[in-house]
């Protein structure tokens, strides 16, 4: 008996080792699914605040570039104002509340944590439930598409960017209006892939790709990127398009969260339709 205790005492570190490793593995198995990650939410409160502080210092270094980006965006938005258009014909453009109802509204937020070198990246922003952010809202930057909100706590929210293996967004080519799906296969954060475009369409390098507006999340026409190169598997009939992303994911700072006011209605209609098919 004594020798057993002596043995246990001599190799106590092995048991501690095994215990710690089992702990780590339980942690991994509980959090391996990004969508259900408890760590993301648990880390939000502590890590979010720390990163917020660090980021507020880092902000000063990017001010110049940020200003230029925002100024460029302001210019673009001004160009779209009604006052920037001249009426050519006699018909009057009547702005009528019964004709136009606001469909999308935008909330400005700042990125407090960002990653782009992993296989599955995520972004944390400094707006949460109390600012009206809920999962599934679309997120864009002044340059273009960013991703979709997956979790929101009171003050922070996490975003699944395009740079995630589960990310899938509906996009289209502006020139031909052909629809495809934007996915990311890992690797370089500057490029993503568009699949499901039939090879019967002719594509060219630098063709513009924007969001299609078919999914409920993104409005139509949000900038995605440009065609970089094309390939197609033999006999598949579909292109594998390499896309140069417009958004510089390593330099994200200000983003906008898009609230689709008709999402609830669209979703319930879709559910109704699917139920009808089952019957």
């Amino acid at each position: 008996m004594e020798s057993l205790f002596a043995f246990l005492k001599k190799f106590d570190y092995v048991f501690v080792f095994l215990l710690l490793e089992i702990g780590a593995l339980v942690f991994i198995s509980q959090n391996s699914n990004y969508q259900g990650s408890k760590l993301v939410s648990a880390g939000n409160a502590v890590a979010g605040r720390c990163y917020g502080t660090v980021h507020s210092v880092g902000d000063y270094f990017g001010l110049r570039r940020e200003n230029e980006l925002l100024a460029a965006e302001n210019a673009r938005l001004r160009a779209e104002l009604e006052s920037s258009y001249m009426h050519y014909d006699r018909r009057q453009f009547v702005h009528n509340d019964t004709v136009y109802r606001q469909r999308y509204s935008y909330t400005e937020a700042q990125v407090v944590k960002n990653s782009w070198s992993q296989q599955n990246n995520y972004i944390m922003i400094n707006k949460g439930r109390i600012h009206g952010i809920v999962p599934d809202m679309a997120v864009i930057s002044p340059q273009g598409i960013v991703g979709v909100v997956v979790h929101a706590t009171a003050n922070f929210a996490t975003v699944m960017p395009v740079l995630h293996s589960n990310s899938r967004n509906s996009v289209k080519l502006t020139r031909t209006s052909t629809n495809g799906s934007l996915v990311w296969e890992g690797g370089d954060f500057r490029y993503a892939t568009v699949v499901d475009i039939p090879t019967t369409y002719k594509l060219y390098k630098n063709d513009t790709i924007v969001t299609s507006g078919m999914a409920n999340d993104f409005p139509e026409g949000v900038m995605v990127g440009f065609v970089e190169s094309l390939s197609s598997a033999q006999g598949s009939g579909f292109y594998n398009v390499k896309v140069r992303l417009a958004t510089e994911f390593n330099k994200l700072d200000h983003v906008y969260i898009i609230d689709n006011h008709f999402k609830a209605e669209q979703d319930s209609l879709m559910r109704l339709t699917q139920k009808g098919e089952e019957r």
Partner: protein
Amino acid sequence: MKNLVLANILRFVVLILLQILLLNYAYMGGYMLPFLYILAVLMLPTRMGKVPMLLVAFAAGALVDIFCNIPGFHTFSCTLLAFVRILVGNRMLTRGEPVDIDVPCIHTVPFQQFAGYLFVMTLVYCVAYFLLEAFSFGNFWWMLLSMLLSTVVTWLLMLVCQLLLPKKQR
């Protein structure tokens, strides 16, 4: 003795901060990740208790995991690293002689021996880390390439850090 404890705590904090705030943003073509913070475990005194060493490694890995939002990969790999260090690493440092090395570094251990020690330990870490990642994402060649390149990058970075150390620690 007190200075030694303080120095180890300071090194731990500085390396973890460096890892969280700077190195996790180092982008190297998507293949390589420099894990410099494991130096905090590799430079612990050889006479340190086995259980405390495991706990320190666990804490280091857990901190990096929480701040990088990675589900336990660092925690697992870092604890494994400490275990391998207990089994083999200490013997590589002392060459089996009954001596204690307070600060295992380039000034207290012959260069070739120390570089070899760092390389083997880093390899253990990277293999564990990228195997875990591959179980979740599964791309074999990508994993193998990441494993090798990360090992080399981390190793070189650690050696550079060693060369920057002040000599008075001899």
